[in-house]
Every structure is written in C-alpha cells, then in structure tokens.
C-alpha cells in the first residue's frame, strides 16, 4: 500500500492558553470502550465539563458519603480535554493524505449550559448542524480523545494522582471490531494491526482502500493504547433498536471480558443512557422531585434478574472473573432526558427546573457519571498497591 502523507496542525479553542502537558510517568491510563452511539462522547464532554462547570451529580441508589468522590480537575494542566482528529483529506482519492488536527478544551464554564445538553443529546445528523465539532460518524475520520484529571484523597500521604481517560471516538466500530475479534489484538505497544488480520472483520475486503487504511490505523492506535491501559471502562447501551447493533455490542462485551482476563486488567462496566430504562428513570425522577427520597435501587438485581442490560447470562458467567456485578457495574446517565427530548434540569435549590417557558437557570442532571471513573481509579490503585506489597 502506498505511503500515506501525514500532516499535523493544532487548533485551540478560545481561552486555551497552552497545549496539554505530556502525561507524567506515573499517570494511570483508563481506556473507554463501547460501540458507536454507546455514549462515549457525551461521557467525555460532560465529565470534562464537570470539572469546570461543577455539574451536580445525582446518585442512584443514594450514597451515604454524600457523593464525595476524590475526583478533581487537573489544575496543573489547563487542558481538560484533548481531541485529535485523524482524517483522510479526500475520501475519494485513494492516495489522499491523512491529516491530524488537535483541539484543546480548557476548564472554563460555558455560558449556556442548556445549549451544551441540546448539542450533545442531539442525533448524529443534527449534531453536525448544531455544533462546530466533527461529530457525525464519517468513514474518513476518527478522533482520539484524552481527558486529564486527578484521583486521590488529601489524607493520602502521596496526595492525588494524575489520571488519563482515553478513547477513540467517532469510531466505535473500530473499538467493537478490535475487541470482538481477538485475532486483531496487539501484543506490544509498538505493534501494528496488519491488513491480513483485518480480514477477520466482516466484508473488510469490500471496503474502499482509504477506509481500510484508516480503519487499520485506528485499530493500531487503539490496540497500542489499550495495551498500555491500566484499566478499562466498558460502555453498554441498553437502548439499541437495531439487532445488528445489539449483536455488535454483545460481541464487544464478550471480547472485552476475554481481553481483561488475558491481561489481568481491572474492568468497570457503565450501562449508559440508563434514563431510558423505565425502572431506573422512575428512581431518578423521584430523587429529583422529592428531596427527602433516598433510593435503595438494587442495580445488580435489576441487571441480572430483570436483564436490564440485555446480557444477564453473560454477566452471571463473568462474576468473579475480573468483575463483581455488585461493585463494578453501574447504571449511568450523563445527560438525563425528561423523555420528551428536553433535558432534565435542576435549579439552584436542587429541584427540577421547568423545561418550558423562560430559558432555565438550572443545570443538566447527571446520574452516577463519576462512579465508573472513581471505581476504575480505585481498582488501579488497589492493584498497584498489591503489586508494590
């Protein structure tokens, strides 16, 4: 295959004074994986925004500690989020070059919080119109996303630790393929996914050459960073209408279980878009309306007995094999909807703000969003301390 030209340029969003600092040697990396539209983008954007916006997070079931998780924005590093787009310059030209563009997002409040929700909760087609971000999935690009934060408690003698959350966005298909087909897996951080092994992907040979090349590069990039990852967060969407998407998600999940077992990696599962699950949404709604309500929702029971994620048998089989369904599986919703296409907002008093009428002063409700991240960090540190001991 002809060598592809690679050009690099950097864009800064307004207010970004500098580029992100290179991660330090003790930075722990967490890979976020999920099929297309499983909620990876929303998770990164809202969670990154959380550090600057201090978005309130609701916990279901309620937490006794009041939700004090030791997660912080990285004040040494102005950049909360870094996105690098890899794009073929001309999709119709098989010899076209590959262009990379990096954008940096800093810890700054947004003027209109509702607008953020509308942009991120819109369908993929609408996102391209509503935002300047290259969100609609295209076959000629993928985006590497990195979010920097710190985890740790002031009581900890070592203080907080730098962490990096990483994914390949706009390319959930790449992620699904990589984990589903273990014949693609890289065994070292410098490895390359070969054209030959890519043929394990259905119909790969029938794709256009530029798409094949981009896909192989994406698989390689992903393979390298998950090889270096200290933990994985798997996103599962319970709201997949298409049977093909459901099959893709199940294959991905089974692949991720194989991967973490083979490499002894901590795994945390986030069932995203949980507000689409009626039982769960009922708890969220009640928690927002009645400030005295303390939810006792049993997540594990809901997932295993009532098959809330559509993979009860699989989760049962994996119990104790790198995950605990009680401690490592979370129902999350980073941008809760009222169910009618409007964001569920809470006002200053913590109660639901009206969705109609004058633009609200409220902020979007996030449910359990930080839990998978905190749990992944906790397990990384536990593993490191065990190793150290």
């Amino acid at each position: 295959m002809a060598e592809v030209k690679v050009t690099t340029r950097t864009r800064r969003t307004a207010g970004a004074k500098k580029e992100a600092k290179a991660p330090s040697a003790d930075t722990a990396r967490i890979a976020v994986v999920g099929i297309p539209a499983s909620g990876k983008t929303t998770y990164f954007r809202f969670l990154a925004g959380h550090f600057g916006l201090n978005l309130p997070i609701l916990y279901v079931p309620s937490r006794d500690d009041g939700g004090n998780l030791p997660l912080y924005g990285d004040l040494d590093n102005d950049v909360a989020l870094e996105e690098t787009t890899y794009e073929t310059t001309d999709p119709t030209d098989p010899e076209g070059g590959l262009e990379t563009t990096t954008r940096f997002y800093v810890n700054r409040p947004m003027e209109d919080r509702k607008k953020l929700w509308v942009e991120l909760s819109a369908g993929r087609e609408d996102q391209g119109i509503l935002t300047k971000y290259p969100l609609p999935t295209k076959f000629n690009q993928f985006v590497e996303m990195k979010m920097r934060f710190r985890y740790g408690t002031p009581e900890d003698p070592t203080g907080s630790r730098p962490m990096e959350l990483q994914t390949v966005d706009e390319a959930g298909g790449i992620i699904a393929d990589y984990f589903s087909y273990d014949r693609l897996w890289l065994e070292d951080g410098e490895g390359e996914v070969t054209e030959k092994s890519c043929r394990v992907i259905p119909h790969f040979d029938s794709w256009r050459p530029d798409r094949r090349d981009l896909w192989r590069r994406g698989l390689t990039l992903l393979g390298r960073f998950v090889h270096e990852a200290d933990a994985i967060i798997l996103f599962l969407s319970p709201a997949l209408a298409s049977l093909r998407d459901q099959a893709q998600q199940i294959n991905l999940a089974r692949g991720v279980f194989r991967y973490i077992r083979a490499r002894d990696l901590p795994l945390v599962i986030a069932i995203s878009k949980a507000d689409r699950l009626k039982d769960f949404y009922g708890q969220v709604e009640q928690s927002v309306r009645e400030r005295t309500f303390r939810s006792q929702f049993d997540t594990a029971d809901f997932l295993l007995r009532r098959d809330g994620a559509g993979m009860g048998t699989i989760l049962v089989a994996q119990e104790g094999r790198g995950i605990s369904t009680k401690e490592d599986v979370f129902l999350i919703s980073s941008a809760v909807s009222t169910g009618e296409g409007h964001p569920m907002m809470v006002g200053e008093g913590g109660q639901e703000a009206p969705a109609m009428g004058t633009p609200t002063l409220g902020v979007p409700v996030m449910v359990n969003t930080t839990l998978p991240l905190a749990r992944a960090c906790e397990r990384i540190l536990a593993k490191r301390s065990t190793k150290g001991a």
Partner: protein
Amino acid sequence: MGAPQTAMASATDAASPPTLRDRNVLLLDLSKSMLAPLPDAPSGRGDRQKIEVARTAVFRILQDAAATGTPFGLVTFTETVRVPVPLGEVHRENLPYIENLLALLQPSGRSAIWDAIAVGADLLRAGTQGVRGNLVLVTDGWDNASARFAVRPEPGSPLKNGYNDLVPYVLPAHSELNLRIVGIGSGVERDRGVDGAAMNAFLEQLRARAGELGLAGAFSFQEVTTGSQLFTQMVQAFLDVGYEDDRPLEELHPEELAQHAASAAKALKEPQQHATVARLRAPHPTGTGGAPDPSYLESPDLEIGVLSTTGGAPAYLRERYGPLGEVIECYLAAQYDRALKLLTESREVLPPVTRLYWQARVEFAQRAVVEAARSLLQAWTEAEKLPPASQAPVIRRLALLQARMQNDKETETLIRFIDETEHRLGEVDASARERLMDLLARLMELRGTYQLTRLAGEGDLQDAALRHEAAVEDVFGRLQDARLEFASAGPAVEGALDFIEICLAEMR
C-alpha cells in the same frame, strides 16, 4: 431457466480432483425404435416413449456432472455416430443449452451400436494408459448399422469381412474401464428390445480379455422392461420446491438478516416452544456436491434437492424427474387433485418418504390440515429409515413443512437458513463447506448449554452460564479463523458467517 438446486447425497469427497477413472461417457441410442412406447403396466400409468425415459437418464447424469465437475461426454448414435457433448467439464451455466439440445434430438434411422462404443472408447483413450473411465450405453436395439466394428458371436469365431474386432479396441493393455449397458425393453423378440444375447457375448469377451491382461474393470448388462423400472433405478429422488414467500439471504437488508438470525436463535433457545428443532440433525459436512457414485444406475442414493421456482416452474421437470416431476408441475399449477391422483398412481415408483411428503404438502395447500398432518407423520416414520447421509436434508424439508403447518416462524427461519446455506455452499470450495457445516453443527449444539442456564438452580447458575459462555467463545474463535481463512470465498460464505455471528450474539 431455473436450474435445480440439488443437494446430492454422496459419501465421496468432492475435494479430490477427478481422476481418469472418474470420466464418464454416455452412449445414447437415437434410432427410430426409441420412439416406441415402453409399457408401464404395474403403476397403471400411461406408456411413455423410450426416448423420453432415456432422456431422463441423460438429464440426471448431466446434472451430476455439472454439480461435481466430473468430466462428461455424450455420444448419440443412429446409423451415424455423433458427439454432441465432447468429453470435458460441464459448467452449470451451460446446462440449459445442453438440455435444450437434448430435447431437440429426435430418433430416426438404425443403430450402429458397436461403432458408437468404439467412439466412446476413443473419448476415454488416454495414450499408452489405454481406455480409462466409465462408459454407459443406453439402447433398445440390435446393432444393424455399424460400418467399422463388430463383435464375434462367440470367442474365436470369425468376424465379418472388413470389420475390426471391437473387444481389443475397447480394451487395450493398461486399460481400466467400467462398461454398463442398460437395455430398454425385452430383447426376446427382434425389434422389441435390446439384443441381450449379443450384449452378453460382448461382455463375456471383455471379461475374458480383462482376465488375460490382468486389467481392472467391471462390465454389466441390465435389461429394463418398463418405464417404472427405469425411473426407479434412475430417479430415486426426494425433491421439493421453495415456498412462494422464500427470499434468498443475499436479497435481505443487513438489518433483515439480523432479524432472521435473531429469530433462528430463538428457535434454538426455546426448545419447548419449537419442538421440531429437536428432530433436526446437524448438517453433514459432505452432504452437498460430492463426486458421482459410479454405481448410480444399480443402487442409486436418494437424490435430494430443492428446485428453484423463481421465474416460474423449472423446465424439463417431467423429463428430468418423471412421475415426481409431473406431481410438482401439477402442484405449481395449483392442480392439487391431479397431483394427488398422480401420487397414488406412482406409488410403486416413488420412494415412500417422497410420496408421503408430497401428499402432505399438497393436502396442506388444499387446507386439509388434519390429512396433511397425518401424511407428514407417516413421512417422518419413513424418513427415519433412510441412510444417515440422506436423512438430515430430508428431515429438514419435513421439519420446514411442519413448521409452516404450525406457523412456527422461528423454526422455519432456522431451517431455511441451514438449507439455503448448504445449497449455496455446494458451489464453493469443499474445505470451506466442511468448516461452515461444522460451525453450523456447533451452533446447533449450543442449544444444550443454553438450556442448562435456563434450568439451573440458584447455586448452579454461574457454572451453567460459564459453560455456555465457554462454548460460545469456542464457536466464535472458530468463526474468526474461518473468516481469516476464507476471506475471499465470496458472498455465500460471508453471508453464512454473518448469520452465525449474529446467532451467537443472540445466544445469551
């Protein structure tokens, strides 16, 4: 023309390339006497012309040759010997042309049998290796027109002047020849049937020469006096036609394919609601294609096929499949009463499982559900008596009809997928076919481990789930290897792998 989708049952592996011995030449008598009727008293059916019956044999052998890639040649003879199909591989796409040609061949004139055998031997001649292959002669007559070759009436007796001895010509040193003569009609009276005495004398001399030279080979003569006898020998078939709402996999939108796979998986996951699935056998890896059985005229396997009806009824049904072809023609024309009458008349000719299945199918089309169920039950009993190689595909056709009768869409989808996959894979590499059939069989076996997860008690649930997941992962690993190995094997293989992959995801 809708080419038949056959799934020939054969124990021979189609992967091995045809050897010189696998070459087949058919010698077909086209003398005027072939226009005479062949009595068919035992079945009570009307008489048929000998040529009509003989064409059936040719159609069938041609079809076998096209399916297996075995070299085939056709020699026809009156007083003149012709080679309408030179010895070579018959390509499936050329079948309609050859079949049209055969349909146009009209008997006339006399019979140059010995000259024809010599030409057939020439086609099979392999230089210093002698004559190697299979010759099948279908004739109703006496030699009365040969100009070059003759056979001594008795060993050592003189030949007619100017004629060559056919025996050493056909059987030179190093030969390996099988000659089978099918004589139509009794030859007790001249011009009423084949000259059995001359044929037997010829075969005796061949056997003697083979003994002298130490040659391998088989020589036989078989006389058939009725059309039914010939059909029984030549067309032992279980044939079916697709249903009007059949849609090939390749026509499905990817999401529809996923829906079909999910539906099929449901049939595997819920055995109580889909009892028919339990009757299905795992697909036989070598159940399709396969090399021809050289003894097809003597002890034919049950030919199993699903005829495509896209674009109307298949051509030459009657010619190719005799009474069964006629039944199918009537069924397709919605002449159900006539179809049932024909089935009764062909009782002696048709294999019981075929007759009972078609009776059920016709009755179901007539909405006589109770009668159809009774006939199908009897067909199931007959199917149990079939040899294993034939059993699996026949049982699937029975199960498909039963699923339709019970309005069980999930089972119907699963069976259709297996059937269609087996058929489509008939044209691909034998190793790919075997691997995919093995994958399908393993997919079917997942029913067992999945059921255990449903039945297990609280304490055993994790063990059962673990075992099931391990079984799924094993199949998925094999599926990945198949994807890598057969990446360029074409849409038939890819479609089957896609379907299995989605089914696997559903088994959770």
